[in-house]
Structures are given as C-alpha cells and as structure tokens.
C-alpha cells in the first residue's frame, strides 16, 4: 500500500474523496464545503479531487455546507463535509437535523478552541458540545487513524442497522498541520471496502413527499427510541466494520476503547486524541519502572462504550481522566462520562479529573507525570484540577 508524508488534513481529505469516489457506481456523492482554520486544507483537497460522480458545492457558511450535504444525502448520495470550532457552532442547527433525519453524513472535525477570545489551537469543546445529538463520534491520535477512521465511518454510518451521521475528530495543528508518514489506500481497495449506498428512506423525484413534517408526541418519542436502538447496535456494527477493514486493508483502524496494561493496574489514566500518544509513552516508562499503571484511550465517544470502559478499569483503585475540554459548571466532559459509568458501581474507586491543554496548550510528558503525582497522593476525588494554573499539585 503506498505511503506518503501527509498532514492530518490531507489524510482526511484523501479519505473523504476516495470514499465519495467509491460510490460512483451508485448515486454518487456530494458535499457542501466552507473553509475555516485549521480545516481549510480538507475542503481544498476535496475541491480539487478529480471525481467521477461527486458534486462539491462551495457555499457561504457552515450552516449551508451541512444543508447541502443534508440535501445530497436525502437524495441518496454519499454525503460528507468538514468544519471546526466556531464554524461547527454556526452549523449546529443542521448538524442536529442530519442526525434526526437519520442521514449517514460523515463530518471530519478539526478540534479547535471555541472563541472568543480568538484561538486556533486544539481543544475538543467544539465537537463535544454535539454530544447529545444523534451522531457517532470518534477521536483520533495520529494521521493514519484519521484516515482509517474516516473510511470506517462511511461503512458504519451507512449500515442499514445504524443510519446515523458520524463525526471524526482530530486535534488542530498537532495532527491537522503535521506531516506524518501515512498509508494511503488505493481506490480499488476502498471500492471493495465500502458497499454502494442505498439509503432506504431517500427522497425520489418521481414521488415527491416531505420528510420531517409535524408528528404527534407519541410518534416523536418513538423516533427517539428508534435512534437509541440504532445507537445500541453501534458497538457490534463497529466491530464488523473494523474486522472488514483489517481484512480488506491489512491494518487495524483501532478499537473503540484501547486499554494498555490495565489487567493489574491500580492507577489508570483515561485519555483521548493526541494526548493518548504522549500518555502512553509515560505509562510505558513508568511500567518499566515497576509501577502498576495502565492506560485507557477512548476512541469512540458516542455512543459511549460503557462496558468496555468498565472492563478496562476493573482492577483500578484510582482513575485519572485527562480532559482537553471544559463543560462550564461541570468540568471535563470525559470525566463526566466516566463518573456516570461508575455510578453505583461500588465504593473505593477514585475518579479525578485533570484539565490539560484546554485552549490548545501542549500536554507534555512532564505534565502527565505531575498528574500522576497528584493522583498518587490523593485519597479522595475533588473538583477538577486545572493543570498549569497554579492549583494544588498542578503547578506544571
């Protein structure tokens, strides 16, 4: 498989393009695109790709970008887009619509701090604010994972048992603008991996109807339940898609939850995105020194992989969650999820939140050592610790 030195944006643009091209034998593909730093190179890549049967529509805003993709998807085309930060905030109404319409639209999001004040660096707050929408969400730690997960997202979202949109996120600049060696699968391989899309509820011009008109509460509630049932099938279909990926591309796109050294770990760090890479190195070093420490990387955030996380933390007494995001009035959003997973699971498990790299800061090995020192010394969980802000152990 050919490899090249590409940025995360390039990897994402490539994956979106070959996936779109792979539907050329069916109803083709389309997307609305609108640029925003640091995602712009994705839409530039897509806009210059020599498609056979894909319409790329430059529009005047993110809201319309998703609007075009919704229209295309409703017509049965493979649909996708990309955005970031305040662009996602502006797109929100249509992001929600895509989910409730059960449209398997794929969005690559480059995680960037929401402003003001203006900031272009990595922070997951933009995509995590979508956490209550009917979207599957993945977080990636390198450019290969961005590419692979984007491809997998099409197979997963378009599966008849799922039919939900999928978001694939990467950290701004740390991935989006960093060149890394990445395998770029050939079109023929993708043609075999992604079956043609046949959207069951697509609109047909020979029988014009409106989809999404007024429904009574009893129907609305039923539709929510239908979404919940689809979400509950995601882990199973994800595993099938992952197996097919391994079979077809000879590479593992990564488990929904990736545990390292957790079998006997007393302390476990829960991480996501590029922090996972750095934390893994720290954990490996400390393991080599005999410390009973483990790592849990959460790749799939929605639906939240409860049982896999519970399983990975089975032997832990203390869990430290590293959050590159902040939910006002709560704390880290991954930490919030962890607490709910272990709600009522028994006494003795300490789950402490560490806000690291919020606003795009560099989460260094030294900072993770500081986190572990705090976790070691702590006898009970408290409010989230703001690393680097001069709070108790987090003097960074």
């Amino acid at each position, binding site marked *: 498989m050919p490899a090249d*030195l590409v940025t995360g944006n390039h990897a994402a643009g490539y994956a979106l393009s070959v996936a779109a091209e792979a539907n050329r034998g069916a109803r083709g593909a389309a997307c609305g695109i609108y640029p925003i730093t640091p995602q712009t190179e994705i839409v530039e890549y897509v806009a210059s790709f020599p498609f056979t049967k894909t319409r790329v529509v430059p529009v005047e805003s993110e809201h319309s970008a998703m609007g075009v993709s919704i229209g295309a998807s409703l017509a049965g085309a493979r649909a996708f887009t990309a955005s970031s930060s305040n662009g996602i905030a502006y797109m929100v109404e249509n992001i929600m619509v895509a989910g409730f319409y059960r449209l398997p639209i794929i969005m690559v999001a480059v995680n960037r701090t929401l402003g003001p004040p203006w900031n272009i660096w990595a922070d997951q707050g933009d995509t995590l604010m979508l956490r209550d929408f009917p979207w599957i969400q993945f977080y990636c730690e390198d450019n290969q994972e961005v590419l692979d997960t984007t491809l997998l997202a099409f197979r997963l979202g378009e599966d008849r048992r799922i039919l939900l949109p999928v978001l694939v996120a990467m950290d701004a600049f740390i991935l989006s603008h960093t060149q890394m060696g990445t395998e770029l699968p050939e079109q023929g391989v993708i043609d075999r991996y992604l079956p043609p899309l046949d959207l069951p509820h697509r609109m047909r011009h020979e029988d014009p109807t409106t989809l999404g008109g007024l429904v009574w509460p009893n129907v609305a509630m039923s539709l929510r339940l239908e979404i919940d049932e689809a979400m509950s099938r995601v882990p199973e279909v994800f595993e099938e898609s992952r197996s097919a990926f391994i079979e077809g591309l000879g590479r593992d796109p990564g488990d929904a939850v990736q545990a390292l050294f957790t079998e006997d770990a007393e302390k476990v760090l829960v991480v996501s995105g590029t922090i996972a890479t750095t934390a893994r190195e720290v954990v490996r070093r400390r393991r080599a020194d005999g410390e009973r420490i483990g790592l849990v990387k959460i790749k799939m955030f929605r639906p939240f992989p409860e049982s896999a996380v519970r399983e990975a933390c089975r032997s832990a007494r203390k869990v430290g969650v590293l959050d590159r995001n902040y939910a006002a009035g709560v704390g880290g959003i991954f930490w919030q999820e962890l607490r709910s997973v272990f709600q009522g699971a028994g006494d003795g498990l300490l789950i402490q939140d560490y806000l690291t790299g919020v606003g795009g800061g560099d989460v260094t090995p030294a900072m993770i050592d500081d986190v572990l020192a705090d976790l070691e010394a702590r006898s009970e969980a408290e409010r989230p610790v703001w690393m680097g802000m001069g709070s108790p152990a987090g003097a960074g």
Partner: protein
Amino acid sequence: MVEIRIHGRGGQGGVTLAKIVATSRFLQGQSVQAFGLYAAERSGAPLQAFCRYDDAAIANRNLIYAPDHVVVLDPTLVGPGVASGLKPGGWILINTPEPPETFAEQFPHNRLATVDATSIARDNRLGTRSVPIVNTALAGAVGALLGIALQEIRAALEHLGFRGGNETAAGQAYERVRRAEALQRPPRGVTEATGSEAASSPFVATGRGPSFLEGAGGGLPGIRTGEWATQQPKRQQYVPPCNHVCPAGNDVQGFLHALARDDADEALAILLRTTPFPATCGRVCPAPCMDSCNRIELDGAVNVRQLERFAGDRGRAEVAVSRARPECVAVVGSGPAGLSAAYQLARLGYPVTVHEAGPQIGGLLRTGIPRFRLPEDVLDREVGRVLGLGVRMVTDHPIDRAGLLELSREFDAVLVATGLQELRGLRLGVGNSEAVEQGIDFLDRSHRDEVRVDGEDVVVVGGGNTAMDAARSALRLGANSVRVVYRRTRREMPAIREEIDEALEEGIPIDFLTQPVLLRPGGSGNGAPRSYRLTCRRMELGAPDASGRRRPVEVQDSDFEISCHRLILALGQSPDMSVFPEGTEVREGERLLGLLETPVFAVGDLATNEGTVAGAIGSGRRSALQIHAALNGEHLPITEHARARPDVEIRHDEVIRADAMRLHLFERQPVAEGAHVPPEVRRSTFDEIHMGLPDAGEAQRCLSCGVCNECDLCVTYCPEGVLKRVGHDLVFDSAYCKGCGVCVTECPRNVILMSHL
C-alpha cells in the same frame, strides 16, 4: 531522534524546508514529523517550523523546545532567540554570505555553518529577484551537515515535485556550505536542555493569566486593530492636468467642483482669483484644459470652456481688494494682458493707470474678435470689473520710446503690454492693392461698421482664429462667397477646433495645402467690384519646423487660379519693439534694464508671443506678482491649488494622468455641448451664435483628478469604519485602521496611498 528548528519569515518556505528534510528521511524508512508553528502570521512575520526524525516510531505529539539543530532562513532573524533551548554542540546553519566565524562570539556553545542560499536561489531563478525561495538550497546544506546524502535530499525534492533549479541549488549548497566546528567556549557541563524554554512557551501554562473582566492594566489586553497594521493610508494630492495646462493659471478643477455643487457664485470667486475675464475666456479660449482632460479616455473631455462661461455669466462675486499701497504702476496697453496685470495690481492695492493708444478699452478683445463670438455687453461687463477696482484709463494715448521713459520717471513701475502690432504680409506681385487687407484691420473695421463686402468673392489666407473670424465676418457682411486657403492641413491649424467646425457649418470651404503666390487684376465692369485672379500652389508636408509642425513644401507644377474680389491676410503678427531702447531683449518675468531705477516689465504677447487671451491673462497676472515682489518684496505663489488641505500629507508636483485614475469606477455620460443658433440663421447676423449651457450639470462630469472632491467612497467602503469626514478633512483613526487598503482601491481619483509604518 533528531529535532530541527527552522527560523524564517512567512512566505519564505520554512515549513516546506522541514518537509523536504523529513521526506528525505521518510523515504529512507525512518519515522518523521514536520510541522509549522502557526498563529496569526502574515507574509514577512517571523515564523518557526520544525522537523523530527528517528529510526523508531515517533510517539511524540509535542512541540520542540530543545532542538538538536537550528536553521535560519533569513539573516535578519539572527539573535538570541535562535539559540533558545538549542542543545550545546548542535549546528546553527545560517543563510548568509558571511563566514561562519562571524557568529562565533554570539553563539559560543554551538557549531556554526553558513551558506549563501539567497545567491544560489537567485542563480537558479528560484522565486523572484526580490523574494528568492531559499529552502531547497538550505535543504542541501542541512544534508551536508547532518550526514544526509545529497542523493537522498534530491530524492526528497523529486518526490515533492521540486525539480530543475531546485535540485541544482541543493547540490550547490551541499558543496558550498562552510563550517566552523570548533566551539568558542565548551558548554559548562550543560549537555541537555533544561526545559526552561518550555516554561517560557505560550503553549505551556505556568500559572494564572490575565482576567477577561479587568480593564486596562491587569486584564486581558484589548487589541486595537491598528496594532496589526503594517501600513496605513495617507492623503495625497496631484496636480490635475487642466490646472497644469491652463495658460491663465486658473484653478479649473476648483471652479468645476464649485459648479458641481451648483454654486456659480463660488465658482466665479475662484476664477476671479486668477482672471478678470471668465465670461470672455468661456467664449474664446482654445481651452487646452479640454485637450488634456483625463475624461477623454472615458467618454470625452469635460466642457470646461462653456462651464467657465456659465460661471462668468451667472455667478455673482465681489473681488477682494487689499489695503491701499502708495506705489503707483503704469500699464501700457489695454488688451487682456494689460488689463489682467492692472486687475491683479489693483487687487493688491496699487493705484494703476492704463494707457491705451486707441479710443476704446480692450485691445484685440474689442477690435479683433467679432461680436458673434464675444458680444460687446459681455466684454463691457468684464472690462467694467477691472475699472470698478479704481483702475484709471487714459485712451487715445499712444506711448512711444520717449513716452516710456517719461512713464518710468513718473511711476514706481511700468508694465508694457502692447501685444503684437506688426502684421505679417505676403509677396503676391502686386503693390498696395486695395483688394488686399490685413484680417485684424478688417475685423476692426467690421467692428466699427466701416466695411461691407456685398456680392464679393472673398479669399482669406491663414489658419488661425483671425482667419476664421475674418472669413465668418465677411460672410455676414454680404459676401457672395468666402473661402479660406491654408498651406498646411487641418491638423496644423492653430484656430480653435470648434470655430473651424462652425465656419465649415456656415458654408466656408477651406483649401488645405494651398499657398497663394500671385495676385493679378482681372476684369471689371458695369460698376461691379474689380475682379482679381489669385494663383495658388499646392503644398505637401515635409519635416517638422521650429514650431513642431510639419513644414509645407511646394509641389512642382501644381499652380491653379482662383477668381476673387478681395484677399484678406491672417498670417500672424509679431511684436513692435520700437517702444523699447535699441537692442532690448524682452522676456517675461525679467526686468528690462537701462530704464532708470524703475522696474519695467514686458507682458502678454509682446513677451510670450502665445497668441491667446488666456495666455495674455496668465502673463499679466504673473507680471503683476513680479511687480509686487519688486516693490514690496513679497513673493506670492504663482499657482492656485486652492483646495490643498492640511490633512493632505503628500502633495505631488506631478500631473496625474488618466492611467493613474480608476476610470472604471465612473459611469459614462455624454458631454453637454450646449445649443448653437442654426448655421442658416447665423450666417447673416452678428448675434452670438452659441447659446451657452442651460445649467451647470456638465460640471458633475469632472473627475476631480488627483484632488479629493469629498465623494466619500472611502468612508463608505472602509470595512473598519475608521475613516470619517470631519468638515472638509478626512480623518483616519490610526489606532483602529488595520491597513487593508480598501480606501485606496476604492478611491476613483487616487488621493489616498498606503504608507508603510
């Protein structure tokens, strides 16, 4: 693992250099990363890029705080920051023609290398001469220092599609890089970076920062958009071409601007600064302003002549007069030059006496221009404007050489404005035939109702306004036929274009390239006027003569005859110098010597031979200012750019041409020509034939070239809203102007430019 930091400027290709080096290792199977450190950089701002490579898979998502080596793309960036966090003993590679030892004192703990990548890039035509792209050359130098084979660098360049000059440049730098390996001072036990550099990075928090809520002096610093600016606008002003060429020195653009606001009074006031004769020039001026008008490039010149007439006819304005001065000035001649000088001197407060040889005031304005072009009441009104300032007139008072000496004793200064009194003749083989007459004399007699040409065939010789006026007057005085013969072509005719058109419309043919050579008496009888035979010769145009016009050359054996009763000569005039002492050289603005202590000046056609009313007005005004300077030592400005405002920072002496205007921002509009009396009606009357403009709307066609006319497009389009009109001033708020340049591109008349801060 090897980590490299690159210092460059936005646009220099530092990130690409990181990618080239990384690619060369990637293609050898190593694990690599290459990235830039991005912020709100714009072209030219300092920027860092990074590259790391390792045999093992790189599991590092952090920035590089302690690089192994540093590359500097731009020698102006060499400073302490270059060595920040750099590991002792690591290379510092600098793009410079200097030897590496130059930097030894500055960077004592590091190995140093230099290469003149800029010259190499220029030699290989990489980038432009002003912005050479140096990264491919530096990639070669990096390879040489870090043990990367040249063919591996070249493989990376080829992989990335950089061929040709890039590969050559890399090879040249690989060979030419100069090294200074010995460390100036061994590092004092420091072998690893301390991490202190990370602590000073904005990507690593080390405590609480400023508050969003506290104001200045503790809170988050508010950014004024002006702080981003690298350039901001300045007001500039050019000289409009109409002002530049006006022989009278009028502020043409200024009076048009007033008329565009429908303010004829203000327009007249502006004109009266430089001329007492706007209604006159508005009828008879050849209007060189219209020939130079930039609007020609769009849809035709602004009809300045008729607008000046409009201001002169419709405006009401008082003439401002300074306090009275004791020095008395004599002016000889009451033509436009003499009256212009008298007018300006009177405005300056001098008692002025004008001596006129003839019985009436006005010189050629009175005697040489027919009433159908310049009605008598118009001239009387404008002469009255001069007299109204208290100028004393002495008519029927010719001044000869002795008289001039007398005046120079009697007055504190004398101006001689006697014009062109010597008329050019033509040798036609006859003596003082009563059939031959000078055009000037014919016009004068016509003016005094002393001539009729009923039933005659009249031939006028010449191509100037006098020829046209004489021909058209003859038509009105009962001629059977009138024709003009001229030895050059229409292109060379000095007459006003419009007057030529009007003569043709009235049925006066012009024989071009025709020279009369012989006049012989023909037959006569039965009381009819005596007939003559005029032999003419065909001409062709040869090389240009001193006037710049092509000289007419006789065509062999081309003679032909015209029958006529009267021949009027309008071949030009020359000054009569007999009033001055023998050998006097006359030049405008130069005081004539040899006439006691009194300043004596020659003005108008006598000094300039320009031959236009406007030229005479300008000469008279300039000479008046020179008299004033001679008598009172005050040098008043010759040019009138009345509206150069204090907020205009840059005043160009240069004339703005059409290509400096943004003509695409203007709509095309037809020229307002004004109405004429139809030719068949006007042929028989001396009533004025042009009826003038009904309103001043034509003034709105003025583009106001190079001079702000407060159109305020800049204010409208300023995206930051930092441009304001305060009174007549344009105010830029530099604290908030980000220097985008929209005001410059939106200004139709180029009165704003961007200035680097």
